[in-house]
């Protein structure tokens, strides 16, 4: 099929570069420079989809971002993309696209039965029909999703990659039409860093679709010269195919750059899309305007298009969108479109003008050219199944509310046509301005919403601010650009070239116009024809009126009830008409009705772009200890602890996790285990008030801790809840080293800094995080001392010289080290700290020397079992932000002689209630059963929930030392319930009976660790 509707010359397409593509399986040809929509129209394809609710045939309606109808499924397989606007898809060779929302085919669609049933599908249909019974909702939902869903999301992984970048500039110019180009020229003349972002592949905006002149030459020549000038300026970045999709606080904007979508061959190293997170000192919005449709009966058939879009197809793409056109307008602007269509050889059957006395510059030119005008007339109905083939026309009354001659066919005349070019005026694209929290105001003369007071450093240029004439666009563009640069702190430029002055151009807008928001028909509204307001969501004027009759008043509520403006196009073409019809129906002025909120994104942004490269291995930052490579080589299975990768257990050949953990646990109790404890947080504390500071932050007393000794500390929030625990060593007179739990290193550091800086700045204390300065290799077990003695010559390890909670310095395996005799396992244990870069060497030395003791590396799971056997808590496991030291039975660590953070909260009445959950041990009656952690506990088992819950299991393991399972639990008043039975009713009906015990299961006297 050749391009029957392609004009022989003109346009911005490259006829030397034909491109093949497929739509719904049929092969077509277009040219480089085409959009998918223009290429389809060149081949005479108008029917491109079915509507959302009624499955009515729909065609290409616009030529840009506002497209409500021509949404296609692009590509196939993993790269397939749904809901792509054919008007914004660059044609590439080999492109495939398919229509959406129809089954089994576009031409014959079973869902179209909805159109016949439409009187049973009013506004709010879903809410009314599917409210009851609730149990059936799941089934309804399935049906609705199948009936409604637009495109299809591919199942396979997205093979493309995406990029994100931050960016900064002095001036962002959004939109590269005449106003935006002028603004970018004026701003960059000062040397300002300018980013010019344009959603189209070409610069020029509306000029691409118009036959205008600037300084007596084609406007495109001026665009080309402006582009060349901007490209020559080092401080300017031009981003095409880049949509400014969001305008956020403090001039932070989101831009989506489509990097490779328009390339048939996509270079592997380039991302498909790039998301720009831009901070602009000043913003110039030159976002243009969007033409509005007219709301008349059956205004949705393929072949009914926006007048400006028809003009763009003729002028930019050299495509005839039809052969015989009726132009339907309420303003002067559409006459320009009519003239361009006529010049392209399209017969203008009539210009149907709602205005009783058409006037204006374009009207005059059209009349001079002899185009037939029907003043004070309206289209009151259309005909045509898959393409419009006839319109009915009637004279309208002076007030525009009805047709002259009343109802019935007699009053109307019919005109055959295959194209209806519609113009209902223009709506400035105020989306970004509104997103920036700028106020919007209604302009009665222009019949549209305009930007009011800006909320941020925002400047406006061109049609988005109501400057509709070309000369005004250029003028306001130059002004806005210069102002923005000045506001960004740049000095006015000196290079005044011809191109920088506002050039000569016409300044015709689209006025005068007549605002007839709802075009009357010869039938009552809602009967026999549909006046569509929102084409994408199939919302009609009758739906809006029904919602108002049912009592909805706020425009936001009417919007949600009818879904008007809630499609993927967010009502770019329909919203103003909807608001005006609501206002008219309510008898209120439009400004009083107001506008619905504009929300980002302006047009859809791929999820891939938001994710960028933060996926898979780079999903989150991962932290590795200096010994990580050894763990990896030796088969460790890793566990995520915060961002850290910690060895969980080290399975041998065919070992299960259970077997590996049992082996590791037993090795520690019987001979020697070693664990990589590098991840514990470490905070260096210096200054003469360090002890006082610790006194205030920890619950226990620190003044008397000797140099060279360690002490366990418990830290609370000001609410009295346990926040962290750890061992702190006194390294020198005014020098301490605090350890924190792995996961809490950063929060604890922040907590300390907060009080130091904000409450007690007078304290001479300074904190530095040294978590990663040291690698920590911890030996535990009866042979720990023996091994360490073999590795050091200068550290005395006897119980007297280095007792439990002692500290020594010297060399281990030849490496300078600090050795802390502290234990988290209940075994004799030495934590060896060396400078991080020696961590691996130390570990390897320990492993080699420890062979004779069958040294066993153990992971976090074995560590948890070992500490739980001793009843040692883990902050974040036994505690959850609602547990006090009293709940844990740790009264012994609360100093009575000083204040500390959280102390006062511990005497609040709620903290002293006897039924608070308390830490206890728990033994299942069947020693082989291991309770699931998190299991809820009850005292009385009922047939089914709800049951009265008295607590929960916080830690639960099998212990090879106890040769049975055991658990720690938080139980209401638990310490007073020793020996009592509780039950854990589990999912699936099983119930485990348990006995409450003390929380220490092994070596209660602590003999093993002192030795």
């Amino acid at each position, binding site marked *: 099929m050749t391009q029957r509707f392609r004009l022989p010359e003109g346009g911005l397409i490259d006829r030397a570069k034909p491109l093949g593509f497929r739509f719904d399986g049929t092969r077509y040809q277009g040219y480089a420079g085409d959009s998918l929509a223009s290429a389809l129209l060149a081949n005479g394809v108008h029917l491109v989809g079915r509507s959302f609710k009624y499955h009515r045939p729909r065609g290409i309606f616009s030529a840009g971002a506002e497209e409500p109808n021509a949404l296609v499924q692009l590509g196939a397989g993993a790269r397939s993309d749904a809901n792509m606007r054919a008007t914004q898809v660059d044609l590439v060779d080999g492109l495939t696209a398919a229509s959406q929302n129809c089954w089994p085919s576009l031409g014959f669609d079973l869902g179209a039965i909805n159109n016949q049933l439409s009187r049973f599908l009013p506004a709010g249909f879903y809410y009314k029909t599917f409210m009851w019974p609730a149990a059936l909702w799941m089934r309804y939902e399935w049906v609705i999703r199948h009936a409604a869903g637009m495109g299809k999301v591919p199942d396979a992984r997205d093979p493309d990659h995406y990029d994100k970048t*931050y960016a900064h500039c002095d001036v962002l110019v959004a939109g590269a039409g005449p106003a935006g180009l002028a603004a970018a020229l004026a701003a960059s003349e000062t040397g300002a860093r300018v980013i010019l972002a344009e959603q189209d592949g070409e610069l020029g905006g509306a000029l691409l679709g118009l036959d205008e002149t600037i300084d007596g030459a084609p406007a495109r020549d001026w665009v080309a010269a402006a582009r060349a000038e901007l490209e020559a300026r080092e401080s300017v970045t031009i981003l095409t195919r880049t949509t400014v999709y969001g305008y*956020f*606080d*403090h*001039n*932070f904007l989101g831009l989506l750059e489509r990097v490779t979508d328009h390339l048939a061959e996509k270079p592997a190293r380039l991302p498909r899309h790039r998301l720009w*997170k831009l*901070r602009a000192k000043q913003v110039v919005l030159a976002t243009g305007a969007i033409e509005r449709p007219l709301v008349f009966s059956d205004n949705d058939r393929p072949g009914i298009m926006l007048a400006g879009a028809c003009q763009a197809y003729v002028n930019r793409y050299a495509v005839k969108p039809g052969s015989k056109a009726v132009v339907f307008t309420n303003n002067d602007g559409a006459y320009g479109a009519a003239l361009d269509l006529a010049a392209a050889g399209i017969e203008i059957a009539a210009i149907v003008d709602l205005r009783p006395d058409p006037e204006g510059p374009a009207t005059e030119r059209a009349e001079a050219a002899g185009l037939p005008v029907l003043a004070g007339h309206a289209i009151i109905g259309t005909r045509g199944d898959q393409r419009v083939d006839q319109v009915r026309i009637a004279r309208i009354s002076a007030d525009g509310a009805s047709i002259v001659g009343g109802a019935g066919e007699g009053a109307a005349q019919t005109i055959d046509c295959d194209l209806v070019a519609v113009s209902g005026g223009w709506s400035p694209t105020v989306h970004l301005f509104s997103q920036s*929290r700028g106020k919007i105001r209604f302009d009665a003369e222009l019949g549209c919403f305009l930007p009011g007071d800006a*909320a941020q450093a925002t400047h406006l240029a061109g049609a988005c601010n109501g400057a509709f004439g070309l000369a005004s666009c250029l003028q306001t563009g130059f002004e806005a650009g210069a102002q923005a640069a000045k506001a960004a702190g740049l000095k006015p430029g000196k290079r005044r070239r011809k191109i920088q002055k506002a050039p000569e151009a016409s300044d015709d807008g689209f006025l005068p116009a007549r605002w007839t928001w709802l075009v009357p028909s010869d039938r009552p509204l809602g009967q026999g024809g549909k006046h569509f307001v929102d084409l994408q969501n199939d919302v009609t004027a009758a739906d809006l009126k029904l919602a108002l009759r049912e009592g909805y008043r706020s425009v936001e509520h009417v919007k949600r009830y009818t879904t008007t403006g809630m499609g993927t196009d967010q009502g770019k073409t329909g919203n103003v008409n909807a608001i005006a019809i609501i206002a008219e129906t309510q008898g209120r002025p439009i400004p009083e009705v107001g506008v619905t909120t504009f929300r980002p994104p302006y047009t859809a942004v791929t999820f891939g772009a938001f994710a960028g490269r933060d996926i898979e291995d780079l999903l989150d930052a991962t932290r590795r200890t200096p010994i990580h490579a050894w763990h990896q080589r030796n088969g460790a299975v890793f566990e995520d602890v915060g961002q850290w990768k910690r060895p969980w257990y080290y399975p041998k050949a065919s070992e299960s996790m259970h077997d590996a953990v049992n082996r590791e646990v037993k090795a520690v109790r019987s001979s020697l285990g070693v664990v990589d404890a590098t991840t514990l947080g470490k905070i260096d504390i210096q200054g003469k008030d360090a002890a006082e500071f610790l006194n205030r932050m920890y619950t226990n007393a620190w003044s008397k801790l000797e140099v060279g000794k360690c002490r366990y500390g418990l830290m609370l929030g*000001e*609410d009295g809840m346990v926040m962290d625990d750890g061992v702190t060593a006194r390294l020198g007179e005014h020098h301490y080293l605090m350890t924190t739990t792995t996961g809490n290193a950063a929060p604890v550091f*922040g907590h300390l*800094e*907060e*009080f130091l*800086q*904000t*409450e007690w*700045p007078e304290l001479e204390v300074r904190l530095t995080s040294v978590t990663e300065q040291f690698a920590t290799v911890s030996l535990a077990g009866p042979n720990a001392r023996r091994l360490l003695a073999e590795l050091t010559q200068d550290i005395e390890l006897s119980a007297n010289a280095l007792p439990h909670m002692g500290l020594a310095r010297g060399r281990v395996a030849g490496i300078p080290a600090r050795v802390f005799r502290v234990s988290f396992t209940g075994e004799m244990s030495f934590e060896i700290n060396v400078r991080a870069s020696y961590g691996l060497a130390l570990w390897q030395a320990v492993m080699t020397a420890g062979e004779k003791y069958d040294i066993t590396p153990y992971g976090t799971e074995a560590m948890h079992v070992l500490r739980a056997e001793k009843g040692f808590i883990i902050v974040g496991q036994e505690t959850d932000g609602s547990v006090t030291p009293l709940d844990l039975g740790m009264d012994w660590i609360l100093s009575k002689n000083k*204040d500390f953070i959280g*102390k*006062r*909260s511990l005497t*609040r*009445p709620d903290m002293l209630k006897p039924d608070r959950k308390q830490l206890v041990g728990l033994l299942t009656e069947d020693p082989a059963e291991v309770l699931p952690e998190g299991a809820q506990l009850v005292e009385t088992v009922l047939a089914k929930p709800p049951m009265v819950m008295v607590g929960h299991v916080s830690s639960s393991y099998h212990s090879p030392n106890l040769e049975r399972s055991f658990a720690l639990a938080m139980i209401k008043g638990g310490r007073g319930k020793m020996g009592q039975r509780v039950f854990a009713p589990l999912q699936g009906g099983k119930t485990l009976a348990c006995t409450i015990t003390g929380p220490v299961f092994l070596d209660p006297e602590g003999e093993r660790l002192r030795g």
Partner: protein
Amino acid sequence: MLLIPCPYCGPRSEEEFSYGNEAHIPRPKQPDKLDDAEWAEYVFMRSNTKGVFLERWMHAQGCRRWFNVARDTVSYEILAVYEIGAPRPELELRRDV
């Protein structure tokens, strides 16, 4: 995304900061002298201001210093930043909120 003028490092993106809630709530000097209600007021109760709010921020990914910010909770405009311990800034409360 706010642009917060750290009094020490200059304007930086909000991502670098952590939020510290309402400013000018000093820790009582003698907590044990307060009754339960007074203590709860200090620990739990904060204003929920519409308009100019004095709040604390910490430049977590920068200099790690705490400081105070006067921010309009309606417009998100930052009207002043000042050091911890400095008096409340005198601001024209001109906002129509």
